[in-house]
């Protein structure tokens, strides 16, 4: 029992990170109907910026404190993601309004390459570490309730907590503020949003900024765990099955989809692995997504796709 719960918790924590990446896809898709293939590149770019700024700042400003240096690096990287969002809207999206979905998808594919290229030429292409002072050692909890207690990885726990906090803050922002309301309005109906004077261009910049911020947080967590390297951009591809499962248009769907995939991966690896061979973790999410595409293409929470003929 204890082991099962440990696996479950491990899955939930990994899942929370998938949710974070998926959230980036959903935000942009809802607001602008663009499937943003560059989300992974944004995660990489943000993580690179964070890693390099954190390394450079003590030299630039003569600061010793790790916390302060990381704090300034976070703000700088956030500002950089804002500039990236603004440039993407200015240089790409603005000129592609009302174009076909496939055209926009290809455009984001282009953005992905540009971001990766610029990222490596500014920040270099080595493997960097992000050290934000995440606790690395595992802890035992609930030793009284279970035989042997539960072994929890503290780093995963903190990461999941940060992810949950970010998701919570974002949903508050969406539900409670005037700008959040405008974002939801644009997601619901472009034409009507324009008729009440909501400027679409500004909303797109804001949405890409929020997606950039989410990418930054995801990048920091992944980067602190695995190191910042180019494979980070492909980690974001794990967000794809999550959005297929949860539905491309649903924020709760992205979160729950991420959790399901995280848990499913871990449980199937542990309990099915011995029966059908290891490595399930690698393909599990994609198989699940395939099943969903066959039987429930709109995902768990997505809007039903009805085309008028």
């Amino acid at each position: 029992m204890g082991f099962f719960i440990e696996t479950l918790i491990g899955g939930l924590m990994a899942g929370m990170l998938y949710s974070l990446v998926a959230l980036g896809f959903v935000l942009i898709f809802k607001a602008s109907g663009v499937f943003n293939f560059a989300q992974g590149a944004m995660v990489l770019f943000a993580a690179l910026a964070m890693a390099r700024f954190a390394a450079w700042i003590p030299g630039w400003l003569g600061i010793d404190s790790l916390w302060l240096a990381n704090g300034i690096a976070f703000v700088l990287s956030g500002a950089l993601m804002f500039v990236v969002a603004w440039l993407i809207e200015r240089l790409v999206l603005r000129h592609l309004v009302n174009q076909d979905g496939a055209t926009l998808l290809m455009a984001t594919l282009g953005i992905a390459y540009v971001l990766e290229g610029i990222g490596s030429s500014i920040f270099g292409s080595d493997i960097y570490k992000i050290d934000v002072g995440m606790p690395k050692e595992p802890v035992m909890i609930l030793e009284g309730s279970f035989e042997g207690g539960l072994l929890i990885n503290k780093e995963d726990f903190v990461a999941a907590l940060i992810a949950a906090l970010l998701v919570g803050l974002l949903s508050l922002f969406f539900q409670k503020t005037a700008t959040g309301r405008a974002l939801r309005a644009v997601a619901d109906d472009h034409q009507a949003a324009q008729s009440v004077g909501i400027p679409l261009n500004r909303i797109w910049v804001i949405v890409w900024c929020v997606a950039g911020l989410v990418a930054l947080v995801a990048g920091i967590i992944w980067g602190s765990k695995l190191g910042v390297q180019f494979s980070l951009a492909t980690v974001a591809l794990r967000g794809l099955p999550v959005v297929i499962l949860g539905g491309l248009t649903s924020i709760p769907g992205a979160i729950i989809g991420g959790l399901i995939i995280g848990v499913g991966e871990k449980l199937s690896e542990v309990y099915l692995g011995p029966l059908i061979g290891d490595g399930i973790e690698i393909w599990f999410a994609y198989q699940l997504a395939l099943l969903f595409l066959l039987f429930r293409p709109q995902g768990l929470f997505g809007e039903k796709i009805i085309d008028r003929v």
Partner: protein
Amino acid sequence: MSREFGDAILDLRHVSLAFGGVKALTDISFDVREHEIRAIIGPNGAGKSSMLNVINGVYRPQQGEIILRGQRFTRMSPYKAARAGISRTFQNIALFKGMSVIDNLMAGRNLKIRSNLLQQAFWWGPARREELAHRAKVEEVIDFLEIQHIRRTPVGRLPYGLQKRVDLGRALAMEPNILLLDEPMAGMNVEEKQDMCRFILDVNDQFGTTIVLIEHDMGVVMDISDRVVVLDYGRKIGDGIPDDVRANPDVISAYLGASH
């Protein structure tokens, strides 16, 4: 009925609109005076919706200009129109379906919001007070339209007649100078039509809002409009007070003629 009108608040001059080779509007001119209820009628495909979309900036006419309170617009956009005090409803209802009635109306107040993103994000005092002031205004609109009981319901779940009313509410929440109504009575039963007529007349009377409305059905429109423009095949075939329009032979043949 003695009604006082101001000067022309909206003036359309020689507007022509084509989609590819298909002419939707040909050389249309008419004006709308402050405080009046101006109807645009015509059979199906006459170009009524295109006309409204031109005023609102959704379509850009190839020729002609829009003069709004003395200001010339050759390139109108929905955003500019909203800024200039024009709000509209939609024939096929374009509400924010996932949002509650209150949120839909609050979205209508978007242009009046002064606090910036950061102030809102930190739920800062002035931003919060502003939100409450807008909320009070929205509640007035809700009372006016008698939709108190559904204020927290997601709009997508409401029946059609009520959605139409919320659509009107969102336009009113903008406190427009000019209200464009795209077939406000379409698809309604008699009782709902009567309610809608009453609201239109009350808006015009109590808030002094100038109203431009499109209707397919001649009957209701003739009763509530001050002046009527009649379109057919994208051309203007009549313009004047309802009694004159009703007697106009071109209008009669457009509505009853063998060609339709």
